[in-house]
Protein backbone atom coordinates (compact mmCIF):
# COMPACT_ATOMS: atom_id res chain seq x y z
CA UNK A 1 0.00 0.00 0.00
CA UNK A 2 1.35 3.34 -0.97
CA UNK A 3 1.69 6.37 1.26
CA UNK A 4 -1.18 8.84 1.08
CA UNK A 5 -0.79 12.08 -0.77
CA UNK A 6 -1.55 15.28 1.13
CA UNK A 7 -4.83 15.61 -0.74
CA UNK A 8 -5.83 12.05 0.09
CA UNK A 9 -4.97 12.67 3.72
CA UNK A 10 -6.86 15.92 4.19
CA UNK A 11 -9.73 15.49 1.74
CA UNK A 12 -9.92 11.72 1.21
CA UNK A 13 -9.41 12.29 -2.51
CA UNK A 14 -12.67 14.23 -2.64
CA UNK A 15 -14.65 11.26 -1.37
CA UNK A 16 -16.97 11.19 1.60
CA UNK A 17 -16.30 11.23 4.52
CA UNK A 18 -13.51 13.73 4.00
CA UNK A 19 -12.00 13.04 7.42
CA UNK A 20 -11.51 9.30 6.84
CA UNK A 21 -7.72 9.53 6.74
CA UNK A 22 -7.08 12.09 9.45
CA UNK A 23 -4.53 10.81 11.90
CA UNK A 24 -4.13 7.58 9.96
CA UNK A 25 -0.35 7.94 9.81
CA UNK A 26 -0.16 6.97 13.47
CA UNK A 27 -1.40 3.52 12.65
CA UNK A 28 -0.41 0.48 10.69
CA UNK A 29 -3.21 -1.66 9.36
CA UNK A 30 -3.82 -5.32 10.17
CA UNK A 31 -3.33 -6.19 6.52
CA UNK A 32 0.09 -4.55 6.55
CA UNK A 33 1.04 -6.34 9.73
CA UNK A 34 0.13 -9.77 8.41
CA UNK A 35 1.71 -9.06 5.02
CA UNK A 36 4.90 -7.76 6.57
CA UNK A 37 5.12 -10.69 8.93
CA UNK A 38 4.63 -13.24 6.17
CA UNK A 39 7.21 -11.39 4.09
CA UNK A 40 9.87 -10.71 6.70
CA UNK A 41 9.50 -13.20 9.52
CA UNK A 42 8.16 -16.31 7.81
CA UNK A 43 9.67 -18.40 5.06
CA UNK A 44 12.34 -20.86 4.07
CA UNK A 45 15.14 -19.12 5.94
CA UNK A 46 13.17 -17.92 8.98
CA UNK A 47 12.35 -19.29 12.39
CA UNK A 48 8.70 -19.37 11.42
CA UNK A 49 8.19 -21.64 8.45
CA UNK A 50 5.32 -23.62 6.97
CA UNK A 51 2.71 -21.84 9.05
CA UNK A 52 -0.70 -20.99 7.68
CA UNK A 53 -1.51 -17.33 7.30
CA UNK A 54 -4.69 -17.70 9.30
CA UNK A 55 -2.56 -18.59 12.31
CA UNK A 56 -0.55 -15.42 11.85
CA UNK A 57 -3.81 -13.50 11.48
CA UNK A 58 -5.18 -15.05 14.66
CA UNK A 59 -2.12 -14.16 16.72
CA UNK A 60 -2.00 -10.67 15.22
CA UNK A 61 -5.59 -10.04 16.26
CA UNK A 62 -5.05 -11.55 19.70
CA UNK A 63 -2.04 -9.28 20.16
CA UNK A 64 -4.06 -6.25 19.12
CA UNK A 65 -6.86 -7.22 21.51
CA UNK A 66 -4.43 -7.51 24.42
CA UNK A 67 -2.90 -4.15 23.59
CA UNK A 68 -6.31 -2.52 23.44
CA UNK A 69 -7.15 -3.64 26.95
CA UNK A 70 -4.43 -1.60 28.61
CA UNK A 71 -1.32 -0.56 26.69
CA UNK A 72 -2.96 1.46 23.92
CA UNK A 73 -4.77 3.91 26.15
CA UNK A 74 -7.25 4.34 23.35
CA UNK A 75 -10.36 5.19 25.26
CA UNK A 76 -13.68 5.27 23.49
CA UNK A 77 -16.26 7.69 24.83
CA UNK A 78 -20.01 7.50 24.40
CA UNK A 79 -22.65 9.94 25.67
CA UNK A 80 -26.15 8.57 26.19
CA UNK A 81 -29.26 9.70 27.99
CA UNK A 82 -30.26 7.48 30.91
CA UNK A 83 -33.84 6.29 30.59
CA UNK A 84 -36.46 6.25 33.33
CA UNK A 85 -35.66 2.59 33.93
CA UNK A 86 -32.18 3.79 34.88
CA UNK A 87 -30.49 1.56 32.34
CA UNK A 88 -27.68 2.37 29.94
CA UNK A 89 -27.09 -0.32 27.35
CA UNK A 90 -23.39 -1.05 26.95
CA UNK A 91 -21.94 -0.14 23.52
CA UNK A 92 -21.68 -2.98 21.00
CA UNK A 93 -17.86 -3.00 21.18
CA UNK A 94 -17.67 -2.62 24.96
CA UNK A 95 -15.12 -4.75 26.80
CA UNK A 96 -14.47 -2.86 30.04
CA UNK A 97 -15.20 0.54 31.53
CA UNK A 98 -12.66 3.14 32.46
CA UNK A 99 -14.81 5.93 33.93
CA UNK A 100 -18.50 6.71 34.06
CA UNK A 101 -19.56 10.28 34.63
CA UNK A 102 -22.68 12.33 35.00
CA UNK A 103 -22.66 15.32 32.68
CA UNK A 104 -24.63 18.07 34.38
CA UNK A 105 -24.51 21.85 34.13
CA UNK A 106 -21.49 21.66 31.84
CA UNK A 107 -19.44 19.71 34.34
CA UNK A 108 -18.37 16.09 34.28
CA UNK A 109 -19.01 14.46 37.65
CA UNK A 110 -17.29 11.06 37.90
CA UNK A 111 -19.52 8.46 39.50
CA UNK A 112 -18.61 5.68 41.88
CA UNK A 113 -19.34 2.05 41.26
CA UNK A 114 -21.73 1.01 43.99
CA UNK A 115 -20.00 -1.38 46.38
CA UNK A 116 -23.37 -3.07 46.92
CA UNK A 117 -25.56 -4.44 44.21
CA UNK A 118 -28.39 -2.27 42.99
CA UNK A 119 -30.09 -4.86 40.78
CA UNK A 120 -31.27 -8.40 41.05
CA UNK A 121 -33.30 -11.10 39.35
CA UNK A 122 -36.39 -12.29 41.20
CA UNK A 123 -38.76 -15.27 41.19
CA UNK A 124 -42.46 -15.12 41.93
CA UNK A 125 -43.28 -16.82 45.22
CA UNK A 126 -46.44 -17.60 47.14
CA UNK A 127 -47.17 -16.69 50.76
CA UNK A 128 -45.13 -19.64 51.96
CA UNK A 129 -42.18 -18.53 49.85
CA UNK A 130 -42.62 -21.41 47.44
CA UNK A 131 -41.35 -20.64 43.94
CA UNK A 132 -44.07 -20.46 41.27
CA UNK A 133 -43.82 -22.22 37.90
CA UNK A 134 -45.76 -22.04 34.67
CA UNK A 135 -47.30 -25.12 33.01
CA UNK A 136 -44.03 -25.80 31.16
CA UNK A 137 -42.09 -25.97 34.38
CA UNK A 138 -40.39 -22.64 33.93
CA UNK A 139 -39.99 -20.32 36.89
CA UNK A 140 -42.25 -17.27 36.85
CA UNK A 141 -40.44 -13.98 37.16
CA UNK A 142 -41.73 -10.47 37.94
CA UNK A 143 -40.86 -7.62 35.61
CA UNK A 144 -38.70 -6.03 38.30
CA UNK A 145 -37.20 -7.33 41.51
CA UNK A 146 -37.97 -5.27 44.63
CA UNK A 147 -34.52 -3.77 44.66
CA UNK A 148 -34.91 -2.76 41.01
CA UNK A 149 -38.44 -1.50 41.54
CA UNK A 150 -37.51 0.68 44.50
CA UNK A 151 -34.47 2.01 42.70
CA UNK A 152 -36.56 2.94 39.66
CA UNK A 153 -39.27 4.48 41.84
CA UNK A 154 -36.63 6.47 43.71
CA UNK A 155 -37.45 5.05 47.12
CA UNK A 156 -34.31 2.95 47.52
CA UNK A 157 -32.00 4.26 50.20
CA UNK A 158 -28.36 4.85 49.48
CA UNK A 159 -25.29 4.25 51.62
CA UNK A 160 -23.58 6.99 49.65
CA UNK A 161 -23.72 10.56 50.84
CA UNK A 162 -26.28 11.64 48.30
CA UNK A 163 -29.91 12.70 48.65
CA UNK A 164 -31.12 9.11 49.04
CA UNK A 165 -28.94 8.58 52.07
CA UNK A 166 -31.15 8.07 55.15
CA UNK A 167 -28.82 10.33 57.14
CA UNK A 168 -30.27 13.31 55.35
CA UNK A 169 -33.86 12.34 56.03
CA UNK A 170 -35.63 14.76 58.37
CA UNK A 171 -32.88 17.35 58.34
CA UNK A 172 -33.54 20.85 57.19
CA UNK A 173 -31.64 22.01 54.19
CA UNK A 174 -31.76 24.16 51.12
CA UNK A 175 -32.96 22.80 47.82
CA UNK A 176 -31.44 24.81 45.05
CA UNK A 177 -31.14 24.03 41.37
CA UNK A 178 -31.92 20.35 41.82
CA UNK A 179 -29.47 19.81 44.69
CA UNK A 180 -29.83 19.74 48.49
CA UNK A 181 -27.46 21.76 50.65
CA UNK A 182 -27.12 21.50 54.42
CA UNK A 183 -25.61 23.79 57.04
CA UNK A 184 -23.79 21.06 58.88
CA UNK A 185 -21.73 17.95 58.57
CA UNK A 186 -19.44 19.58 56.10
CA UNK A 187 -15.87 18.52 56.61
CA UNK A 188 -16.51 17.21 60.08
CA UNK A 189 -17.70 13.66 59.66
CA UNK A 190 -15.48 11.76 62.02
CA UNK A 191 -15.43 8.08 61.26
CA UNK A 192 -16.64 8.75 57.77
CA UNK A 193 -16.52 5.79 55.41
CA UNK A 194 -14.56 7.44 52.63
CA UNK A 195 -15.45 4.67 50.23
CA UNK A 196 -19.05 5.83 50.15
CA UNK A 197 -18.45 9.51 50.79
CA UNK A 198 -19.53 10.73 47.40
CA UNK A 199 -22.48 12.90 46.52
CA UNK A 200 -22.75 11.80 42.88
CA UNK A 201 -25.11 9.09 41.63
CA UNK A 202 -23.81 5.54 41.68
CA UNK A 203 -23.88 2.70 39.20
CA UNK A 204 -23.42 -1.02 39.03
CA UNK A 205 -22.75 -2.95 35.82
CA UNK A 206 -24.80 -6.03 35.01
CA UNK A 207 -22.31 -7.62 32.63
CA UNK A 208 -24.41 -10.56 31.54
CA UNK A 209 -27.42 -8.36 30.77
CA UNK A 210 -25.16 -5.80 29.10
CA UNK A 211 -26.47 -2.77 30.97
CA UNK A 212 -25.32 -0.24 33.52
CA UNK A 213 -27.86 0.17 36.33
CA UNK A 214 -27.86 3.61 37.90
CA UNK A 215 -29.19 4.98 41.16
CA UNK A 216 -32.49 6.82 40.87
CA UNK A 217 -30.97 10.30 40.69
CA UNK A 218 -29.65 9.50 37.18
CA UNK A 219 -33.10 9.31 35.56
CA UNK A 220 -33.13 11.49 32.47
CA UNK A 221 -29.54 12.60 33.01
CA UNK A 222 -26.70 12.49 30.51
CA UNK A 223 -24.13 9.82 31.12
CA UNK A 224 -20.65 9.79 29.63
CA UNK A 225 -19.13 6.35 29.42
CA UNK A 226 -15.40 6.02 28.88
CA UNK A 227 -14.54 2.45 27.93
CA UNK A 228 -12.09 0.23 26.19
CA UNK A 229 -12.81 -2.07 23.28
CA UNK A 230 -10.72 -4.87 21.79
CA UNK A 231 -9.89 -3.01 18.59
CA UNK A 232 -11.64 -5.53 16.34
CA UNK A 233 -13.83 -2.83 14.77
CA UNK A 234 -16.91 -5.01 14.50
CA UNK A 235 -15.03 -7.66 12.52
CA UNK A 236 -14.08 -5.34 9.68
CA UNK A 237 -10.51 -6.41 8.94
CA UNK A 238 -9.87 -3.31 6.85
CA UNK A 239 -10.45 -1.04 9.85
CA UNK A 240 -8.26 -2.86 12.37
CA UNK A 241 -4.99 -1.11 13.06
CA UNK A 242 -2.20 -0.74 15.58
CA UNK A 243 -0.33 2.32 16.70
CA UNK A 244 3.06 2.34 14.99
CA UNK A 245 4.79 2.44 18.36
CA UNK A 246 3.56 -1.13 18.86
CA UNK A 247 4.33 -2.41 15.36
CA UNK A 248 7.57 -4.18 16.24
CA UNK A 249 5.97 -5.61 19.36
CA UNK A 250 3.16 -7.15 17.35
CA UNK A 251 5.65 -8.90 15.06
CA UNK A 252 7.51 -10.19 18.11
CA UNK A 253 4.23 -11.27 19.71
CA UNK A 254 3.17 -13.24 16.62
CA UNK A 255 6.59 -14.83 16.32
CA UNK A 256 6.65 -15.85 19.96
CA UNK A 257 3.07 -17.13 19.90
CA UNK A 258 3.83 -19.36 16.95
CA UNK A 259 7.21 -20.57 18.17
CA UNK A 260 6.09 -21.42 21.67
CA UNK A 261 3.30 -23.65 20.40
CA UNK A 262 5.30 -25.29 17.62
CA UNK A 263 6.77 -28.73 17.87
CA UNK A 264 10.56 -29.21 17.96
CA UNK A 265 11.49 -25.59 18.51
CA UNK A 266 14.40 -25.43 20.93
CA UNK A 267 13.57 -23.88 24.28
CA UNK A 268 16.31 -21.26 23.97
CA UNK A 269 14.70 -19.98 20.80
CA UNK A 270 11.33 -19.76 22.51
CA UNK A 271 12.89 -17.93 25.46
CA UNK A 272 14.66 -15.53 23.13
CA UNK A 273 11.40 -14.75 21.37
CA UNK A 274 9.66 -14.28 24.70
CA UNK A 275 12.30 -11.85 25.97
CA UNK A 276 12.18 -9.90 22.73
CA UNK A 277 8.41 -9.64 22.95
CA UNK A 278 8.44 -8.53 26.59
CA UNK A 279 11.14 -5.91 26.16
CA UNK A 280 9.46 -4.48 23.07
CA UNK A 281 6.21 -4.17 25.00
CA UNK A 282 7.98 -2.29 27.77
CA UNK A 283 9.63 0.03 25.27
CA UNK A 284 6.35 0.70 23.52
CA UNK A 285 4.56 1.40 26.80
CA UNK A 286 7.24 3.91 27.78
CA UNK A 287 6.88 5.59 24.42
CA UNK A 288 3.11 5.66 24.77
CA UNK A 289 3.30 7.16 28.24
CA UNK A 290 4.24 10.48 26.62
CA UNK A 291 6.46 11.78 29.38
CA UNK A 292 7.27 15.21 28.05
CA UNK A 293 9.67 17.50 29.90
CA UNK A 294 7.31 20.43 29.35
CA UNK A 295 4.49 18.61 31.09
CA UNK A 296 6.70 17.66 34.01
CA UNK A 297 7.78 21.28 34.21
CA UNK A 298 4.19 22.44 34.53
CA UNK A 299 3.62 20.05 37.41
CA UNK A 300 6.87 20.94 39.10
CA UNK A 301 5.94 24.63 39.11
CA UNK A 302 3.51 23.86 41.90
CA UNK A 303 6.20 22.46 44.16
CA UNK A 304 6.67 25.72 46.07
CA UNK A 305 2.99 26.33 46.66
CA UNK A 306 2.21 27.08 50.30
CA UNK A 307 -0.23 24.75 51.99
CA UNK A 308 -2.50 26.61 54.38
Amino acid at each position, binding site marked *: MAYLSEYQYYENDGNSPSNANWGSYQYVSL*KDIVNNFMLMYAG*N*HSLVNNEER*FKVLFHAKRGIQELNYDAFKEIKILELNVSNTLKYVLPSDYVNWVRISLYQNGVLRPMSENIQTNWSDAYLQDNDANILFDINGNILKPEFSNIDYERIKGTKKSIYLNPNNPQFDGFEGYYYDGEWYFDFQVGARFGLNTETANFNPTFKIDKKSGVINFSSDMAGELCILEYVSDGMEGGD*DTQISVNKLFEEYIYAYIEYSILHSKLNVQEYIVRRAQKKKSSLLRNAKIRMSNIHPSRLLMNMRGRDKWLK
Partner: protein
Amino acid sequence: MINSVRNTVLSILNKNNYGYISPSDFNLFAKQAQLDIFEDYFYQYNYNINKENARASGTGYANITKGYEESINIFSESNFLVHSSINKFFTPSPSTTNDNYYLLNRVDIYTNLRANGFTNGTGTNELIDTLTDFIASGVKAGDIVLNLTDNTSSEVVSVATNVLTIDDDIFVLGDEFSVYSGSDISEAERVSQSKISLLNSSLLTAPSNTFPVYTQEEPYLYMFPKTINSYGAVKCQYIRYPKDPKWTYVALSGGEPSFNASSPDYQDFEIPISDEPTLVLKILQYAGMSIREVAATQFGQSLENLETQKER
Protein backbone atom coordinates in the same frame (compact mmCIF):
# COMPACT_ATOMS: atom_id res chain seq x y z
CA MET B 1 17.29 -29.32 -28.48
CA ILE B 2 15.11 -32.32 -29.24
CA ASN B 3 16.98 -33.24 -32.41
CA SER B 4 20.31 -33.03 -30.69
CA VAL B 5 19.04 -35.24 -27.87
CA ARG B 6 17.66 -37.78 -30.31
CA ASN B 7 20.85 -37.85 -32.33
CA THR B 8 22.93 -38.40 -29.18
CA VAL B 9 20.65 -41.16 -27.96
CA LEU B 10 20.71 -42.90 -31.33
CA SER B 11 24.43 -42.47 -31.59
CA ILE B 12 24.94 -44.26 -28.27
CA LEU B 13 22.35 -46.91 -29.02
CA ASN B 14 23.80 -47.61 -32.44
CA LYS B 15 27.25 -48.27 -31.04
CA ASN B 16 28.04 -51.90 -31.71
CA ASN B 17 24.75 -52.01 -33.61
CA TYR B 18 22.75 -52.33 -30.39
CA GLY B 19 19.55 -51.16 -31.94
CA TYR B 20 17.30 -48.36 -33.02
CA ILE B 21 14.22 -46.63 -31.60
CA SER B 22 11.42 -45.29 -33.74
CA PRO B 23 10.36 -41.60 -33.60
CA SER B 24 7.13 -42.51 -31.78
CA ASP B 25 9.04 -44.52 -29.16
CA PHE B 26 11.51 -41.69 -28.79
CA ASN B 27 8.66 -39.24 -28.20
CA LEU B 28 7.22 -41.46 -25.49
CA PHE B 29 10.57 -41.85 -23.74
CA ALA B 30 11.31 -38.16 -24.14
CA LYS B 31 8.05 -37.25 -22.42
CA GLN B 32 8.81 -39.54 -19.49
CA ALA B 33 12.36 -38.27 -19.19
CA GLN B 34 11.28 -34.63 -19.24
CA LEU B 35 8.59 -35.21 -16.62
CA ASP B 36 11.13 -37.00 -14.47
CA ILE B 37 13.53 -34.09 -14.62
CA PHE B 38 10.73 -31.57 -14.17
CA GLU B 39 9.56 -33.17 -10.95
CA ASP B 40 13.10 -33.53 -9.73
CA TYR B 41 13.47 -29.72 -9.85
CA PHE B 42 11.15 -29.40 -6.87
CA TYR B 43 13.02 -31.98 -4.82
CA GLN B 44 16.32 -30.39 -5.75
CA TYR B 45 14.96 -26.98 -4.88
CA ASN B 46 13.91 -28.19 -1.46
CA TYR B 47 17.25 -29.97 -0.96
CA ASN B 48 19.11 -26.78 -1.74
CA ILE B 49 16.91 -24.68 0.56
CA ASN B 50 17.80 -27.07 3.36
CA LYS B 51 21.45 -26.73 2.43
CA GLU B 52 21.10 -22.96 2.62
CA ASN B 53 19.51 -23.26 6.05
CA ALA B 54 22.45 -25.39 7.12
CA ARG B 55 24.74 -22.63 5.84
CA ALA B 56 26.22 -25.06 3.31
CA SER B 57 25.45 -23.04 0.22
CA GLY B 58 26.89 -19.98 -1.42
CA THR B 59 25.65 -16.87 -3.18
CA GLY B 60 26.25 -15.43 -6.65
CA TYR B 61 27.27 -18.15 -9.11
CA ALA B 62 27.16 -20.64 -6.24
CA ASN B 63 23.49 -19.97 -5.70
CA ILE B 64 22.13 -23.28 -6.95
CA THR B 65 18.65 -22.62 -5.55
CA LYS B 66 18.29 -19.65 -7.85
CA GLY B 67 19.03 -21.86 -10.84
CA TYR B 68 16.32 -24.33 -9.87
CA GLU B 69 13.91 -21.45 -9.24
CA GLU B 70 14.57 -20.21 -12.75
CA SER B 71 14.07 -23.67 -14.20
CA ILE B 72 10.74 -24.01 -12.41
CA ASN B 73 9.68 -20.52 -13.46
CA ILE B 74 9.90 -21.58 -17.11
CA PHE B 75 6.61 -23.34 -16.41
CA SER B 76 4.99 -20.51 -14.44
CA GLU B 77 1.69 -19.20 -15.78
CA SER B 78 -0.77 -16.57 -14.54
CA ASN B 79 -4.37 -16.76 -15.62
CA PHE B 80 -7.78 -15.66 -14.44
CA LEU B 81 -9.74 -18.71 -13.36
CA VAL B 82 -12.99 -19.41 -15.15
CA HIS B 83 -16.00 -19.02 -12.89
CA SER B 84 -18.37 -21.96 -12.53
CA SER B 85 -21.09 -20.99 -10.06
CA ILE B 86 -21.41 -19.19 -6.71
CA ASN B 87 -17.91 -19.38 -5.21
CA LYS B 88 -16.71 -22.21 -7.48
CA PHE B 89 -13.90 -21.60 -9.97
CA PHE B 90 -12.36 -24.10 -12.35
CA THR B 91 -8.76 -25.08 -11.67
CA PRO B 92 -6.43 -24.54 -14.64
CA SER B 93 -7.08 -27.19 -17.26
CA PRO B 94 -6.70 -27.62 -21.02
CA SER B 95 -10.32 -26.58 -21.51
CA THR B 96 -10.11 -23.38 -19.43
CA THR B 97 -6.51 -22.15 -19.44
CA ASN B 98 -5.03 -24.39 -22.15
CA ASP B 99 -2.73 -26.24 -19.77
CA ASN B 100 -2.62 -28.69 -16.90
CA TYR B 101 -1.22 -27.48 -13.61
CA TYR B 102 1.35 -29.21 -11.45
CA LEU B 103 0.81 -26.95 -8.44
CA LEU B 104 -1.09 -23.78 -7.65
CA ASN B 105 1.42 -21.39 -6.24
CA ARG B 106 -0.55 -18.21 -5.65
CA VAL B 107 -4.21 -17.27 -5.87
CA ASP B 108 -4.92 -13.55 -6.00
CA ILE B 109 -8.30 -12.01 -5.37
CA TYR B 110 -9.26 -8.76 -7.05
CA THR B 111 -11.52 -7.16 -4.50
CA ASN B 112 -12.49 -3.83 -6.00
CA LEU B 113 -14.92 -3.97 -8.92
CA ARG B 114 -14.85 -0.51 -10.48
CA ALA B 115 -17.22 -0.91 -13.41
CA ASN B 116 -19.15 -3.43 -15.45
CA GLY B 117 -21.56 -3.42 -18.38
CA PHE B 118 -21.77 -4.23 -22.08
CA THR B 119 -19.76 -2.75 -24.92
CA ASN B 120 -21.86 -0.68 -27.29
CA GLY B 121 -19.11 0.43 -29.63
CA THR B 122 -15.96 -1.02 -31.13
CA GLY B 123 -12.42 0.13 -31.72
CA THR B 124 -9.03 -1.51 -31.93
CA ASN B 125 -7.67 -2.12 -28.42
CA GLU B 126 -10.62 -0.23 -26.98
CA LEU B 127 -13.49 -0.87 -24.63
CA ILE B 128 -16.38 1.43 -25.46
CA ASP B 129 -19.49 1.80 -23.34
CA THR B 130 -21.31 5.10 -23.63
CA LEU B 131 -23.49 4.24 -20.63
CA THR B 132 -20.55 4.02 -18.22
CA ASP B 133 -18.48 6.95 -17.00
CA PHE B 134 -15.12 5.28 -16.47
CA ILE B 135 -13.52 8.36 -14.95
CA ALA B 136 -16.29 8.76 -12.37
CA SER B 137 -16.05 5.04 -11.62
CA GLY B 138 -12.43 5.55 -10.61
CA VAL B 139 -10.92 3.40 -13.38
CA LYS B 140 -7.19 4.01 -13.67
CA ALA B 141 -4.36 2.90 -15.94
CA GLY B 142 -3.16 -0.50 -14.76
CA ASP B 143 -6.63 -1.73 -13.84
CA ILE B 144 -7.73 -5.12 -15.09
CA VAL B 145 -10.32 -5.41 -17.87
CA LEU B 146 -12.18 -8.67 -18.37
CA ASN B 147 -14.30 -9.90 -21.21
CA LEU B 148 -16.94 -12.00 -19.49
CA THR B 149 -18.30 -13.25 -22.79
CA ASP B 150 -15.19 -15.14 -23.87
CA ASN B 151 -13.18 -15.13 -20.61
CA THR B 152 -10.27 -13.04 -21.82
CA SER B 153 -8.48 -10.26 -19.99
CA SER B 154 -6.33 -7.23 -20.57
CA GLU B 155 -4.99 -4.13 -18.81
CA VAL B 156 -6.10 -0.50 -18.98
CA VAL B 157 -3.60 1.76 -20.72
CA SER B 158 -5.53 5.03 -20.59
CA VAL B 159 -8.95 6.25 -19.51
CA ALA B 160 -11.47 8.54 -21.19
CA THR B 161 -15.07 9.15 -20.10
CA ASN B 162 -16.67 6.31 -22.07
CA VAL B 163 -13.62 4.66 -23.63
CA LEU B 164 -10.85 2.61 -22.16
CA THR B 165 -7.72 2.03 -24.19
CA ILE B 166 -6.48 -1.43 -23.34
CA ASP B 167 -3.45 -3.57 -23.97
CA ASP B 168 -5.13 -6.20 -26.17
CA ASP B 169 -7.93 -6.23 -28.70
CA ILE B 170 -10.38 -8.48 -26.88
CA PHE B 171 -13.78 -6.85 -27.36
CA VAL B 172 -16.46 -6.95 -30.03
CA LEU B 173 -19.84 -5.25 -29.94
CA GLY B 174 -22.13 -6.45 -27.15
CA ASP B 175 -19.51 -8.20 -25.03
CA GLU B 176 -20.06 -8.15 -21.27
CA PHE B 177 -17.14 -6.62 -19.39
CA SER B 178 -15.97 -5.83 -15.90
CA VAL B 179 -13.11 -3.68 -14.67
CA TYR B 180 -11.28 -4.46 -11.45
CA SER B 181 -8.82 -2.25 -9.64
CA GLY B 182 -5.33 -3.51 -10.41
CA SER B 183 -4.02 -2.47 -7.02
CA ASP B 184 -6.63 -3.83 -4.61
CA ILE B 185 -5.43 -7.41 -4.48
CA SER B 186 -5.54 -9.89 -1.62
CA GLU B 187 -3.77 -13.19 -1.74
CA ALA B 188 -6.00 -16.16 -0.92
CA GLU B 189 -4.63 -18.91 1.24
CA ARG B 190 -5.29 -22.59 0.64
CA VAL B 191 -6.78 -24.28 3.67
CA SER B 192 -7.51 -27.94 4.13
CA GLN B 193 -11.03 -29.29 3.99
CA SER B 194 -10.78 -30.18 7.66
CA LYS B 195 -10.19 -26.56 8.63
CA ILE B 196 -12.59 -24.61 6.46
CA SER B 197 -15.69 -25.09 8.61
CA LEU B 198 -13.80 -24.13 11.75
CA LEU B 199 -12.32 -21.15 9.99
CA ASN B 200 -15.67 -19.95 8.70
CA SER B 201 -17.17 -20.10 12.17
CA SER B 202 -14.25 -18.37 13.86
CA LEU B 203 -14.75 -14.75 14.81
CA LEU B 204 -11.11 -13.81 14.57
CA THR B 205 -10.06 -15.75 11.50
CA ALA B 206 -13.20 -15.95 9.37
CA PRO B 207 -12.24 -15.35 5.72
CA SER B 208 -12.74 -11.80 4.50
CA ASN B 209 -11.90 -9.88 1.36
CA THR B 210 -8.73 -8.78 3.11
CA PHE B 211 -7.77 -12.33 4.07
CA PRO B 212 -9.57 -14.68 1.67
CA VAL B 213 -9.05 -18.45 1.61
CA TYR B 214 -9.90 -21.31 -0.73
CA THR B 215 -10.32 -25.04 -0.63
CA GLN B 216 -9.69 -27.40 -3.48
CA GLU B 217 -11.89 -30.16 -4.78
CA GLU B 218 -11.03 -31.07 -8.34
CA PRO B 219 -11.86 -29.55 -10.73
CA TYR B 220 -12.85 -26.60 -8.58
CA LEU B 221 -11.46 -24.06 -6.19
CA TYR B 222 -14.02 -22.92 -3.61
CA MET B 223 -13.41 -19.33 -2.62
CA PHE B 224 -14.25 -17.85 0.78
CA PRO B 225 -15.87 -15.46 1.56
CA LYS B 226 -18.52 -16.54 -0.91
CA THR B 227 -18.84 -12.99 -2.21
CA ILE B 228 -15.91 -13.86 -4.48
CA ASN B 229 -18.15 -15.10 -7.21
CA SER B 230 -17.40 -13.75 -10.67
CA TYR B 231 -14.90 -14.13 -13.46
CA GLY B 232 -12.06 -11.70 -12.98
CA ALA B 233 -12.07 -11.89 -9.21
CA VAL B 234 -9.61 -14.79 -9.07
CA LYS B 235 -6.24 -14.91 -10.75
CA CYS B 236 -3.96 -17.84 -10.28
CA GLN B 237 -0.22 -18.20 -10.68
CA TYR B 238 0.65 -21.84 -11.12
CA ILE B 239 3.26 -24.19 -12.44
CA ARG B 240 2.05 -26.08 -15.47
CA TYR B 241 3.31 -29.40 -16.70
CA PRO B 242 5.83 -29.30 -19.55
CA LYS B 243 4.33 -29.79 -22.94
CA ASP B 244 4.85 -33.26 -24.45
CA PRO B 245 7.98 -33.16 -26.62
CA LYS B 246 7.50 -34.24 -30.20
CA TRP B 247 10.26 -34.97 -32.63
CA THR B 248 8.57 -34.41 -35.97
CA TYR B 249 9.84 -35.54 -39.35
CA VAL B 250 9.12 -35.46 -43.05
CA ALA B 251 9.36 -38.30 -45.50
CA LEU B 252 12.07 -40.81 -45.05
CA SER B 253 15.31 -40.17 -46.84
CA GLY B 254 17.57 -43.13 -47.26
CA GLY B 255 15.53 -45.15 -44.78
CA GLU B 256 15.92 -42.49 -42.10
CA PRO B 257 13.17 -40.02 -41.10
CA SER B 258 14.31 -36.46 -41.68
CA PHE B 259 13.81 -33.97 -38.82
CA ASN B 260 11.23 -31.23 -39.50
CA ALA B 261 11.10 -28.40 -36.94
CA SER B 262 8.41 -26.49 -38.84
CA SER B 263 5.75 -29.14 -38.48
CA PRO B 264 2.63 -27.72 -36.72
CA ASP B 265 2.78 -30.32 -33.96
CA TYR B 266 6.52 -29.97 -33.40
CA GLN B 267 7.35 -29.47 -29.74
CA ASP B 268 10.84 -29.07 -28.37
CA PHE B 269 11.84 -29.89 -24.82
CA GLU B 270 11.01 -27.04 -22.44
CA ILE B 271 13.61 -27.70 -19.79
CA PRO B 272 16.92 -25.79 -19.94
CA ILE B 273 19.76 -26.90 -22.20
CA SER B 274 21.85 -27.63 -19.11
CA ASP B 275 19.62 -30.65 -18.56
CA GLU B 276 20.33 -32.16 -21.97
CA PRO B 277 22.84 -34.72 -20.65
CA THR B 278 20.34 -35.91 -18.05
CA LEU B 279 17.67 -36.13 -20.72
CA VAL B 280 19.91 -38.25 -22.90
CA LEU B 281 20.78 -40.56 -20.01
CA LYS B 282 17.18 -41.00 -18.96
CA ILE B 283 15.98 -41.70 -22.49
CA LEU B 284 18.82 -44.15 -22.88
CA GLN B 285 17.57 -46.07 -19.87
CA TYR B 286 14.08 -46.36 -21.32
CA ALA B 287 15.41 -47.16 -24.77
CA GLY B 288 17.79 -49.76 -23.34
CA MET B 289 14.88 -51.55 -21.76
CA SER B 290 12.93 -51.25 -24.99
CA ILE B 291 15.54 -52.91 -27.12
CA ARG B 292 16.53 -55.33 -24.35
CA GLU B 293 20.00 -53.95 -24.13
CA VAL B 294 20.93 -53.93 -20.46
CA ALA B 295 24.26 -52.31 -21.13
CA ALA B 296 22.59 -49.18 -22.46
CA THR B 297 20.31 -49.00 -19.43
CA GLN B 298 23.17 -49.53 -17.01
CA PHE B 299 25.29 -46.96 -18.79
CA GLY B 300 22.48 -44.42 -18.46
CA GLN B 301 21.90 -45.25 -14.83
CA SER B 302 25.54 -45.13 -13.77
CA LEU B 303 26.19 -41.82 -15.48
CA GLU B 304 23.04 -40.30 -14.03
CA ASN B 305 23.99 -41.45 -10.52
CA LEU B 306 27.43 -39.97 -10.98
CA GLU B 307 25.95 -36.70 -12.10
CA THR B 308 23.55 -36.60 -9.16
CA GLN B 309 26.37 -37.21 -6.71
CA LYS B 310 28.48 -34.47 -8.24
CA GLU B 311 25.63 -31.98 -7.95
CA ARG B 312 25.16 -32.55 -4.23
